[in-house]
């Protein structure tokens, strides 16, 4: 049974991963606005997930501006899916070992 992942358990990170799981990549500013957090807070979340190999961040010149695009890696996609499965198991009353 999948276990809860401490790296994506925080609400902002879980919602960040949820949004990234539904797209190929997303602009940093869009994620910041949707999560209603500051640039620095989102940067910290993204950096932690990048360090874990769950997220990839790339800078690109887009529409005349330098923008950052964030995407889930295959490992991040799996970690998110496993975490959601673990949450469902908790909801269903199953024990999640930790």
């Amino acid at each position, binding site marked *: 049974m999948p276990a809860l992942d401490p790296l994506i*358990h925080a609400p902002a990170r879980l919602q960040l991963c949820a949004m990234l799981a539904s797209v190929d990549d997303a602009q940093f500013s869009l994620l910041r606005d949707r999560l209603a957090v500051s640039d620095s807070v989102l940067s910290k979340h993204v950096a932690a997930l990048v360090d874990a190999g769950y997220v990839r961040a790339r800078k690109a010149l887009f*529409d005349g501006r330098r923008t950052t695009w964030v995407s889930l890696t295959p490992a991040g996609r799996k970690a998110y899916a496993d975490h959601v499965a673990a949450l469902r198991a908790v909801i269903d009353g199953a024990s999640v070992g930790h």
Partner: protein
Amino acid sequence: MSESNSSPALDPTPAEAAAALHAAEHAQSDLAADVSSPPGWDAAYGALFALILAAAAVLGASGDNLVGQIASPVMSLTAAMLTGVLVGRWRKRNGVWISGYHPGPARRVTWALVVVIGALWAAAFFAGRADAWWLVGLIVVAGMASGIVATRRWMAVYRADLAGR
């Protein structure tokens, strides 16, 4: 949302787990609901496929004709550039990119379109080789219609999938 970096306890109650999951799925479905195609997206995508199929017909008809041999790659290159423009417009409008091959049920629509366009490409090539330009015309129109229908269907399936979670 709080800007706190602190994580909640890793042994949530069923109610806490349900709340966390609901918030995540809500963020996901909200994002999907706000995604929209730029104006003329479907028609532009249809035109893109029409151009690709016309290039196949010109390639089939070219034989030793240098003009045809040059025109087909130029048309294909134009289609590739048009694809880049379309992707850029989508990204600018939505702040996200979702390829047709994104994991999920909508990917089946993409694969169906790939099969249809692949078959039409071969048909256009041989119709061009046979100088059956009336048939090429029909194939190009069919490709354009397939592109328009598939892009609309893809978006509907994508949204329904995320809304239904």
